[in-house]
């Protein structure tokens, strides 16, 4: 008896049976292995899509007992290959070209899939009783050039024993949160208004204990306690100034802001015909209440509120047409001939980049810029199109230098007289990433990610940056504001977050410090951090 893994081989046989003739006879094949154990992975769903032609040519196949797969009878072209298997991270957008071999090929490429991790535990109430149907959400804790962030990675519900298990997680740090069961169920009604709790037992995400998940590892025993502690509500009204009526149907959501972390909470509501809203289940802390018009994307409003020991009422939010932001570009010791042409002023929301719309305007020949209808929000200020060596050094308002390269736009106040100071003394860093601690330790160039981190207690315009190495291991940063920095490098395929202060601390011996003077060019040989997957 033959057990064929899937229709793949049958399909392949059919293709092959059609013979060479005029039929296409291209072949794409490979072997799939576990990235951690190296063992062949069977039943990997492989999909092939012809990406170089305007056709819908697709094929799917499953890897066999030996981890091998093959697509036969393929027309010429460039294909995109995707490999998917339960419990493994999906490998996408692998480019492949068919060859004309028809028999077994010992040189089949090997594709490695990383086994994903999981977090599990129980949800209990304050008396130790299991809580079924509790909603467990796992947030990935990430570190970017602008600081730490959290984003929903996966979710689950506790079963009849109160047990939960959140799976298919890539290696990384996670915050685990439990929310009461869904409203409408008996348990949900019992816990109605109960605030979300983070592991181990806090309502503040910044106080949560991150859970570190490795590839293929399950972190168990992450028990969560759902208690009916006092939670508060925020209620008020929303007025659509453009339409001159209550903002009926607008969506109101609460986003918890805690020590740099912004967590999208499930609390959402729709404004009533009378223009009223009410959000429940909020624990003490800072929140941003965001209102969005569901039909007009860029019509938003936000209000920052702080909950201490009582519910907040009568929060009046106006969904207005936005405010003008006008200003000018100030050039600091510019080289000859520099004009602010083709420069663009770009605003992006600091706290809610995925929720609040961006805004941009071209800089005029007079060095003026004008943005109209900007919704109230705190924005990161950037200028795109600057020449080499130039960088945004400071923002000034009414002659005062702002502490950060950020602008806050208020609901009812135009923001005029902004000055963006551009300096031209940026330094340049070039270098190579080498395998091992030093060049003498051996090892050639490798594809890596390089992080440039400003040392603490310097000016706000010194920002972190990342770069990918070229195939020969080289990298470069230009227009770097003068100051003291530290450089780190990790393999591109590694998920270790170089922006994580804890990671930087652990990689001290692989770091390289640079102290940049104005317009200086430095070369750095950077060892590759031997971080494990």
């Amino acid at each position, binding site marked *: 008896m*033959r057990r064929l893994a899937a229709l793949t081989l049958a399909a392949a046989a059919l293709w092959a049976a059609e013979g060479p003739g005029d039929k296409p006879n291209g072949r794409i094949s490979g072997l799939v292995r576990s990235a951690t154990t190296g063992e062949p992975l069977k039943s990997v769903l492989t999909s092939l899509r012809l990406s170089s032609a305007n056709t819908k040519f697709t094929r799917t196949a499953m890897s066999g007992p030996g981890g091998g797969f093959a697509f036969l009878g393929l027309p010429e072209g460039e294909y995109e290959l995707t490999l998917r298997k339960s419990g493994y991270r999906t490998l996408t957008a692998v480019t492949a070209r068919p060859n004309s071999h028809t028999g077994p090929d010992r040189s089949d490429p090997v594709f490695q899939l990383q086994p*994903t991790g999981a977090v599990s535990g129980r949800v209990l109430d304050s008396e130790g009783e299991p809580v079924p149907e509790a909603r467990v959400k796992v947030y990935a804790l990430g570190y970017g050039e602008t600081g730490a962030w959290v984003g929903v990675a996966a979710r689950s519900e506790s079963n009849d024993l109160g047990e939960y298990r959140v799976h298919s997680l890539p290696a990384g740090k996670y915050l685990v949160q439990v929310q009461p069961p869904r409203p409408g169920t008996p348990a949900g009604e*019992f816990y109605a208004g109960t605030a979300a709790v983070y592991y181990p037992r806090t309502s503040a995400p910044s106080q949560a204990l991150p859970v570190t998940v490795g590839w293929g590892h399950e972190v168990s025993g992450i028990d969560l306690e759902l208690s009916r502690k006092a939670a508060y509500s925020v209620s008020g009204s929303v007025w659509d100034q453009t339409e001159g009526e209550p903002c009926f149907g607008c969506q109101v959501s609460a986003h918890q802001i805690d020590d740099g972390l912004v967590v999208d909470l499930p609390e959402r509501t729709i404004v009533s015909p009378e223009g009223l809203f009410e959000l429940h289940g909020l624990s003490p802390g800072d929140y941003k209440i965001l209102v969005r018009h569901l039909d007009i994307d860029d019509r938003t409003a936000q209000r920052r509120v702080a909950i201490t020991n009582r519910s907040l009422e009568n929060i009046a939010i106006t969904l207005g047409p936005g405010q003008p932001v006008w200003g000018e570009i100030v050039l600091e010791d510019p080289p000859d001939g520099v004009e602010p042409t083709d420069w663009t002023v770009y605003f992006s929301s600091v706290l809610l980049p995925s929720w609040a719309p961006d805004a941009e305007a071209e800089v005029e020949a007079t060095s003026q810029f004008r943005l109209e209808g900007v919704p109230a929000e705190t924005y990161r200020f950037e200028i795109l199109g600057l020449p080499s060596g130039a960088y945004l050094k400071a923002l000034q308002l009414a002659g005062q230098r702002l502490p950060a390269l950020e602008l806050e736009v208020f609901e009812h106040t135009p923001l005029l007289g902004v000055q963006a100071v551009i300096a031209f003394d940026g330094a340049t860093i070039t270098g190579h990433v080498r395998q091992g601690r030093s060049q003498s330790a051996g090892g050639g160039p490798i594809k890596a990610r390089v992080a440039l981190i400003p040392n603490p207690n310097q000016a706000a315009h010194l920002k972190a940056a990342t770069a990918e190495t070229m195939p020969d291991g080289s990298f470069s940063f230009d227009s770097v504001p003068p100051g003291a920095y530290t450089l780190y490098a990790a393999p591109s395929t590694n998920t270790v977050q170089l922006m994580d202060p804890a990671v930087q601390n652990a990689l001290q011996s692989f770091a390289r410090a640079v102290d940049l003077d104005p317009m200086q060019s430095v070369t750095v040989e950077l060892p590759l951090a031997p971080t494990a997957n």
Partner: protein
Amino acid sequence: MHDDGLQRHEASRSRLVFPMRAVLPVSRCLLLPLLVAAPLSALSSAAPHGTVYLHDGAVLSPLSGVYVTAKSLQGRLLKTARTDDGGRYLFAELPPQRIVLSSSRSGYYTDRAAGRSDSQVILDCSSNCAQGSIDFEMIRGAVVSGQVLDGLREPIDRVRISARPAAGSSGDSAFRRLPRSQLSSPTTTGAAQATTDERGRFRLAGLRPGVYRLTAQASASNSPRETRTIELEVHDGELIDGLTITLGSRAVFEVSGVLSGVSIAPGDRVRVRLEEESGSRRSFSASVTGAAAFRFPAVGEGRYLASATVSKGSPARSTRTVLDPIDVRGDTAGMVLRPAATGSVMGVVELQGGTAPPQFRLRLVSNDGLGARLFSIKPEDPRFELHDLLPGSYRIEAASSLFYVKGVRQGADLASASDVAVSSGSQRLSIAVAADYSHVYGTIREPSGRRPLPHPWAAVDGADGKVLVKADQQGRFVFGKIVPGEYRICAWADIQPYEVEDEASWEAAGCAENLIQVPPDSQVEIDLRAVP
């Protein structure tokens, strides 16, 4: 302690029997007495409170972590309490109105409420909500857990597992007129569902005892895209662990051989088709060479209906020959496919009541998995002929709701059912159909008979099977297009749909012998009093 509890509950099962409710028969309606259970006996003046017990065999023990909900008769949730370590709950205050109390805990179901075989209790708090201890008994439902694997024993994630009571099971919820929204959770209907994780694992908890059809369906992005159903009997508190469901596991075999007994001339184009008997519509087709040879490179394990189609000339004229069914259990070379000894069925359709529809659409369905044949005839020419039928047991079904099948006469036998035995050769049939549906309608009132009861349930059980409907705000209900015949009928203030399948529910409501005759083509009005 436990014995005391049991004795107390036995005592509280006694009930008052109210006098028979007068009814308002408009036409040919026959009403038998309705028994109405007693309200809760008033024991104390305390606010609603009680204890929830776990009923485990003969033992009752307090059950903590149970949510007891108080709802209005319209289903609006008023309050929720949760039982403590002693199984106790207490509602400090409830609004002055009629209240429905029920208990729920994931993995358990309510067996008795206030000493009655019911899942909830109705309290009248409109004037005084003074009640004694209102106790509930819950039973731990069965748990079914396991894993879904593919043919290489690898787990499949995101497979939807659903358990639905099999027809005839105590948990059967296959009511023709039950809104789909009622078929959601095991605590209300006996149905449950789960999704496999990345290890292919799943868990279904709180299943009531009975026979279930467990279906595993891979999601669209999974491969293999296959659905598998198994039947499973579970008992209270039973843990069925380690159940393995395999999708895409069927062995695939090469089948080759020759076609024999089918006339093939030079130049004919011949194809052999294999159609899976399970009704999956999976089929395989292969061309036949000059030596009448065929080859299927990869056919899944199973039983197949086979046919050969010979096409001649241009434009092609095709002739189809039914072949003997085949079993594929391994690689097979030299298989000989021969024409099957088929039978024919012919006869007439007789309208025996009601107005004839424009056409009769009927289905001859194999009881042995040999497929179905749809046929239509017009009333002015009620003859039909069906050929190339494989011998076996069949049934006749109406493929339209405009009429129903009353019976089938085969030869000299008059069958009250619709079964047909097909053998090789010809069989003559007479199919009796009718379109003389009736309606049963009326109003359901409170147990006291004073006022109409909003949104109660009514059920009939008889010639048209079991039919369950929900009345409107004014307690009005309609059983539309009922097949005439004898029915028993009952009304409940509230009932779980699966409970209607349970004979005990009818007995508990005093409706077991509550019979009505529904004449053909009639409208029967009947007023009912609901059982609390």
